[in-house]
């Protein structure tokens, strides 16, 4: 009984892959265009439940893909922009913590005027931009996917012609866009009123910083997606959630700049874990702690991590779909 099921699963699985490629518009597969038939999509755990997904329109192309992605991102922006009061409360909280952390780090710099390669102005920028970026990168508090897996609502995500990783990423970029307006600006504007801050002195820093933040958002989304996706296998995702919250807060550079650690430890973290790429690297790029060449290198590290984690997300999602059993009618 298992072997026909497994065969069907692997057969159908190949179809799903080609379907995804068409849906994403990366390459209009002629096979689909010719046949235009209904593709079988196998879900469940060899139980034999098969759902039919209609092949998307034949004129799928890259432009359409971008329009779809943009539309989902726009709706993500609007969805989060409805919570204006929460944004005000959050911005005030970030600002209070900006004061707390800034005073502590300036005390660390003390009379010597600097610590671990940062001067006083750079530390101030590090703190205030960090408080602003926290909500943009959003390390914590995203359980949408885990909730939908638990309730079974994720089934409707799987029926859509856009890959779940892609559509959730688009929503998250929209969310980050709103956070950039509502949560990044207030601390970044308040900080310089009370402290001397370091402003970028070299022009390449600005585009590098923007790129770095974008990569951090994508990477953070990928990590959160993976943590949430453990719900496919575990009934209770609190364990992975807690580990993620602990590790990301400490190792992303939120509590203290990671160069405060011994060099070997910091290097190991930077190349061995995705955490510094979430916050520490964008902030290091912004405060110009290193030369432009090193800044580019740091962003390259982020590119590597973002690509690896997104690929892992798709792999995990593929494996998960093969074992997902949605309860209920």
């Amino acid at each position, binding site marked *: 009984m298992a072997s026909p099921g497994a065969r069907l699963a692997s057969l159908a699985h190949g179809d799903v892959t080609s379907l995804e490629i068409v849906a994403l518009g990366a390459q209009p597969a002629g096979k689909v265009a010719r046949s235009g038939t209904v593709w079988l999509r196998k879900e469940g755990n060899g139980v034999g439940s098969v759902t039919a997904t209609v092949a998307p329109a034949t004129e799928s192309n890259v432009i359409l893909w971008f329009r779809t992605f943009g539309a989902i991102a726009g709706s993500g922006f609007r969805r989060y922009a409805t*919570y204006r*009061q*929460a944004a005000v*409360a*959050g911005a*005030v*909280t970030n600002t*209070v*913590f900006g*004061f*707390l*952390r800034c*005073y*502590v780090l300036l*005390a*660390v710099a*003390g009379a010597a005027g600097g*610590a*671990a390669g940062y001067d006083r102005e750079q530390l101030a920028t590090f703190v205030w931009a960090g408080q602003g970026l926290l909500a943009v990168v959003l390390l914590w508090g995203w359980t949408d996917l885990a909730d939908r897996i638990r309730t079974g609502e994720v089934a409707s995500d799987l029926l859509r012609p856009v890959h779940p990783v892609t559509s959730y990423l688009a929503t998250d970029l929209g969310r980050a866009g709103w956070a950039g307006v509502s949560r990044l600006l207030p601390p970044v504007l308040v900080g310089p009123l*009370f402290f001397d801050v370091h402003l970028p002195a070299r022009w390449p820093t600005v585009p590098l910083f923007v790129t770095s933040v974008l990569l951090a958002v994508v990477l953070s989304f990928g990590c959160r997606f993976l943590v949430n996706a453990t719900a496919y296998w575990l009934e*209770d995702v*609190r*364990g992975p959630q*807690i*580990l993620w*919250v*602990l590790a990301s*807060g*400490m190792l992303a550079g939120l*509590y*203290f700049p990671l160069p*405060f*650690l011994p060099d070997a430890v910091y290097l190991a973290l930077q190349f061995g874990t995705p955490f510094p790429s979430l916050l520490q690297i964008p902030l290091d790029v912004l405060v110009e702690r290193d030369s432009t060449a090193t800044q580019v290198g740091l962003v390259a590290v982020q590119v590597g991590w973002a690509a690896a984690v997104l690929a892992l997300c798709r792999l995990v999602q593929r494996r998960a779909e093969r074992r997902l059993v949605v309860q209920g009618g």
Partner: protein
Amino acid sequence: MAEPVALPRQRPPGRPRPRSGRLAAYRALLGAQARSQAAYRTSFVVDLVGNVGATVFDVVTVLVIFGVTRELGGFTLRETLVMVGLSTAAFATADLLVGNIERLPRYVRTGLFDAVLVRPLGALPQLLLMDLPLRKVSRALFGLAVLVVAVGSAGIDWTPGRVALVLLAPLAGVVFFGSVFVATATVSFYWTESGELANSVTYGGRDFTSYPVTVFDGWFRAVFAYGMGFAFVSYQPALALLGRADPLGLPAWAGWAAPAVALVAAALAATAWRVGVRHYRSTGS
């Protein structure tokens, strides 16, 4: 919704429940909580470990900072650790006992607070017992351990007075942080969407009390340390324990003011709670 007279009640309004009956009801609430939380063993253990992890990292942060500098605001690592110990032990215990009040915004938003008000028990004790987070026990124990180690290694010149203070100060800190939790939660009676705003004073207060007050400056220091009274949670008692004069000029007895400050905070929080509950308007069905 504060006076749900139309609802059927077990006993006529106005006549209080006998004290023993009320205690039994609270005990039943607590027992139900304990059983439900321990029902999922693995989750419970994970929660215990995760909760202690967060507090461990707070202490590690202080250690890392002292890896870069030899003194912070004029205080050495050993001296600062006494403040960290007082702050952590007090905050973690208050968080265990009262911290879940920070879920009040959700109760107000969803209307669950209505159900709490119609029951013939105090609203605040019910809320605290309804989800007493037993998983935070690990955190409170760790906080206590930090305090014991810090006080033990700080080279304190023990006098009977200081022994009394080292026992009183953490208790006062628990009362103080508990009051802060309750007082900040009442904001949600007026501003339902206040979200994480309360965190800026609760967790912000914890961060503030983990460092010598001398680290901070200007109006920010004035507001947090003296306006809200956070200086009396850890900084002033630590100075009294260590026998150091306050570089900011407060007299030596300021460390002994901690219990009085805590009582004032508790009174203010109780008032804020009463006023808040009266002001409460249900969000509707």
